[in-house]
């Protein structure tokens, strides 16, 4: 079990709930579970191909993660839009 934290519009789509306890071995499994349990957010993090959208960053216990990054039990997984600008 890990905790997925979302903010901004993603949090609003989850009824204002920012923390979600979910099962998953990898970042991708976890995010699929997140969108499955929060249907209003479906398609916001993952695109139709099932990939994380290019400007969404995911951090696992404060380390930058990718789709296949393993998620240890109790991990804190942050979903953060990329910083834009110069």
């Amino acid at each position, binding site marked *: 079990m890990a905790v997925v934290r979302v903010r901004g519009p993603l949090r609003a789509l989850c009824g204002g709930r920012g923390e979600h306890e979910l099962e998953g071995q990898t970042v991708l499994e976890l995010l699929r579970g997140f969108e499955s349990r929060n249907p209003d957010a479906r398609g916001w993090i993952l695109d*139709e191909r099932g990939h994380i959208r290019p400007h*969404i960053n995911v951090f696992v216990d404060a380390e930058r993660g990718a789709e296949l990054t393993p998620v240890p039990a109790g991990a804190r997984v942050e979903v953060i839009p990329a910083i834009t600008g110069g």
Partner: protein
Amino acid sequence: MTELTVGTKKGLFLLEGDHSPGGDGFEIRARAFPGEPVDYALREPRSGRLFVATTSPFYGPKLFYTDSDPTSEWQQAAGVELPAGGEQALARIWVIAPGEAPGTLYMGADPGVLFESRDNGSSWQINAGLWNEPSRQEWQPGGGGLCLHSICTWPGDPQRLAVAISAAGIWLSDDGGASWRRGNRGLNPRYLPEADIDPETSALCVHHVERSHARPERMFMQFHGGVYRSDDAGESWQAIGAGLPSDFGFPLKLDPADPDSAYVIPLVADMDRVMPEGRVRVYETRDGGASWTPRGEGLPAHHAYLTVLRQAFTSRHSGAGLELYFGATSGELFGSPDAGASWQTITHRLPPVFSVAAS
């Protein structure tokens, strides 16, 4: 009273005003989706429903609608996505067009995809005929992507449709979109070597297409270098750009009452996308393209290097009361209450204008 729905790089702007002589001009009544790129916005005339297509740089393209206060709650439309598990993702929504059947709407998007709604835009289904078109693998995108940007219904006949895709050309259907065929005869892509041009396979960069309401078999096209007219419902095209300062541009509008009418906004060329001579002018034909007349009274005429995008030109009403409106990427919005005879600046400090629609 006219309402303008203006999609910009930084949100939706709703303006309201009276453009007739003695009218009070336009006021910005509301702003919504602040900071979000609004690629297209439309007040659907039959339902009164307001649509906004955004492409968040983070969360991808989405379609929202509201039946009430635009500064309040919006609903996300369902089904605006490509088939799951494929190799492509929806990149951008380009246009929404009312269909001929009650409650029906069409929506064009990148990558070259047509959606249809039968419930006034609450939910959408992909048009399978066009999505499964066997030549799709060979379609090439234009500079703006593989965008389906023009949807031409046939007044009174929901079976007949035409869509335009940059750069996959014109596609025609006589069975409500179940099957499609090309309609590209006569188009001359000057950006390709002449020996390599094949109307069935060449990349045809159509920029905008409109169908005459008064004579539906007549259509007008702004091409990537070339303005064309079709008198056989889009099967074949003839060049009508002679007399324009440039036949490159993006938007195009017609007077619904006059099948011989068209309005274009020329840009210098594909490598210099600004108004010719630094003068803002709309060009009008009233003889099917045999001649063109500049319409610039009241528009900036000195060092005005503006760009108008393909969805940023719109009209309302017809005949002598035809209203025309267009917005520029530099944030100006212009309007004419008299079919282009005179123009006024409506506002000039908006974010870059992506789309303009009037109701």
